[in-house]
């Protein structure tokens, strides 16, 4: 989903940087407050960051005959919200821009807006919608992850479409063209990513349910119900 360095006109680089900056600042502030409150969140933060690192390095082939990478921002969005995800995703994108020539410093703003802001916002919306319903929490995790992944690519298509409207048909035609390249490739990847994250979430629920409860990701009842379905251990015995 990277827009390559030089492929976005300077004025649009500035626009997307301007959109991204408030999110980055908010994210840094939230991150500092969170870690000051409790260092016990640090491992979970590490897991969320690790997944973004791993998944955005994997460029997988898809049905359209081109390769693309998953984003891995869903877990972080659910656990820590949009702003902190912006910071973690931004670090990964900065690394790729500096070392790998994937994206670049001028287009970093645009890439942050798509992968670390837009996708997470969409994922967060899905999460809030399903959080307090009776929907199985693993299905929620699946949907949040898949939506965050897919919307990232839709936003990339949009960013390119507004910068390069087609001569015939304008922005909409351009959008459809880029959408076909990015988003269609992404559909199977988003589904697999959703499954993997639901599985990972199951392990977190089994190993460290108290941290999810403390962060208020899901209620105690929901977490305990999910644990019972996964592993027939009475919750009272393992709670520390």
């Amino acid at each position, binding site marked *: 989903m*990277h*827009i*390559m*360095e*030089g*492929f976005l006109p*300077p004025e649009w*680089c500035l626009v997307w940087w301007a959109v991204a900056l408030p999110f980055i600042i908010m994210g840094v502030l939230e991150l500092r407050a969170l870690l000051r409150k409790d260092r016990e969140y640090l*491992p*979970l933060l*590490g*897991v969320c960051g*690790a*997944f973004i*690192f*791993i998944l*955005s*390095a*994997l*460029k*997988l*082939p*898809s*049905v359209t*005959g*081109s*390769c693309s990478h998953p984003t891995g921002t869903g877990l972080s969005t659910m656990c820590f919200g949009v702003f902190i995800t912006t910071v973690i995703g931004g670090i990964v994108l900065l690394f790729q821009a500096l*070392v*790998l*020539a*994937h994206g*670049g*410093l*001028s287009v970093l703003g645009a890439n942050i807006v798509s992968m670390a802001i837009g996708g997470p916002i969409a994922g967060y919306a899905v999460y809030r919608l399903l959080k307090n319903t009776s929907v199985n929490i*693993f299905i929620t995790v699946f949907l949040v992850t898949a939506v965050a992944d897919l919307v990232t690519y839709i936003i*990339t298509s949009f960013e*390119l479409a507004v910068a*390069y409207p*087609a001569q015939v048909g304008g922005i909409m035609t*351009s959008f459809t*063209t880029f959408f076909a*390249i*990015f988003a269609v*490739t992404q559909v*199977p990847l988003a589904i*697999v990513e959703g*499954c*993997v994250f*639901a*599985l990972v979430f199951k*392990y977190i629920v089994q*190993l*460290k349910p108290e941290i999810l409860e403390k962060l208020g990701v899901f209620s105690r009842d929901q977490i305990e119900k999910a644990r019972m*379905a*996964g*592993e*027939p251990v009475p919750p009272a*015995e*393992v709670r*520390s």
Partner: protein
Amino acid sequence: MIQVRDYLLEIITAVAIVVFIALFLAVSSGGSHEFSGSDDVGSQKIAELSGKPVESYLPLIPQYEPPSGEIESTLFALQAAFGGVLLGLVFGYWLGQRKRAKVL
């Protein structure tokens, strides 16, 4: 007693991955697909839409570019390895905490 219910998510994920690989094999066996990155396909589309060749798009801010595909893949592998190490560390730490809590 192992129950299918307990491993439902593992099974679904495994099936999804197998289907994904099968799709890849089906697509790659028919027709000529390069499996180039969608980033590059996107860049080519930009060139097509604006009528300027891809080479005319120069970085606005000079940047380091890996000199070859090999070096690039090394750097990507390092990125993924870093994530993997971190993941193993944290899950191991949690597992240890859990085990300890059970003993005490």
